[in-house]
């Protein structure tokens, strides 16, 4: 039986916390908004349902690098993910990740205003635990390709080459 991979902890937090602060750049600076993540752990992707009329798609079109922040206050876990985002008018995907609560906002996944964000996480920095002074850094792609175990250093900031 394979040992759990350290990046599993990252996916566990994403799945448990659910709503992240989705951070984008705009010409006036940086901006965040809460968005409910629809993670696909096996594909290494995080999907979001969003609206074509809201501002963030334009911000993403202008700049594909985004930040995702997940906070688990009780566990004192703070997760910062740098990622690449892509806007898609994909109603099939929207239907696949659709939740009943989305019906509050749209008339189903076929609503012309619905679009999906396909987010590819690149790196994660995790402060995990009550005294969370140490940060562990994860690289998603390497974790997925090799499944190698991390080499832990002795610095306060630990870069895990996976």
């Amino acid at each position, binding site marked *: 039986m394979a040992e759990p991979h350290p990046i599993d902890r990252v996916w566990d937090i994403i799945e448990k916390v659910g709503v992240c602060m989705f951070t984008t*750049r705009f010409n006036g*600076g*940086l*901006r965040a908004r809460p968005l409910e993540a629809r993670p696909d752990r096996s594909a290494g992707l995080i999907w979001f349902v969003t609206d074509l009329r809201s501002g963030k798609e334009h911000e993403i079109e202008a700049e594909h690098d985004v930040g995702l*922040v997940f906070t688990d206050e009780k566990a004192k876990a*703070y997760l910062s993910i740098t990622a690449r985002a892509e806007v898609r008018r994909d109603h099939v995907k929207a239907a696949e990740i659709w939740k009943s609560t989305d019906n509050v906002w749209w008339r189903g996944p076929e609503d012309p205003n619905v679009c999906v964000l396909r987010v590819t996480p690149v790196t994660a920095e995790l402060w995990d635990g009550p005294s969370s002074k140490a940060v562990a850094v994860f690289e998603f792609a390497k974790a997925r390709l090799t499944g190698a175990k991390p080499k832990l250093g002795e610095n306060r900031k630990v870069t895990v080459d996976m």
Partner: protein
Amino acid sequence: MAETDSERVWALMKKIGICMLATWDGHELHARPMGAYVRPEENAVYFLSDARRHKEDEIKQYSKVCLAFADTGAQNYVSLAGHAEVQADRAKIRELWGTPAKAWWDSPDDPNIRVLKVTPQEAEFWDAPRSTVAYAKMAAAALTGTRPEMGDNRKVAMR
């Protein structure tokens, strides 16, 4: 007296306390958890930071930062966009010094301590699940004296 949107933003930031401070390094967005000293009377959010960390360089390069406060349980969220500056103000460091800081430095006289001052530009808050979205234009609206626009989002002057 009813609480204004800007007062609500300050109150939520105070209540949540720890935020993710997001900076732009020219290539990527980076965020890290930071304990916020929320001072509405000074129109500022302060942090104690260490000169040996990277964020100071990022802020010098690009001073626009974002503070993301999230209380996932209560579904309270604040996004505050602001301008950051790094100061080595000893008097301010002493004023902010307290138990949380002792985990990082032995004394407020440690020469590595910096004050990170964030002056709000605009804020957005989510008070309850998907109900009210209030968009608070802070200094910009105050400076131009623009009236709040009513629409999908509420825009209000903060001060």
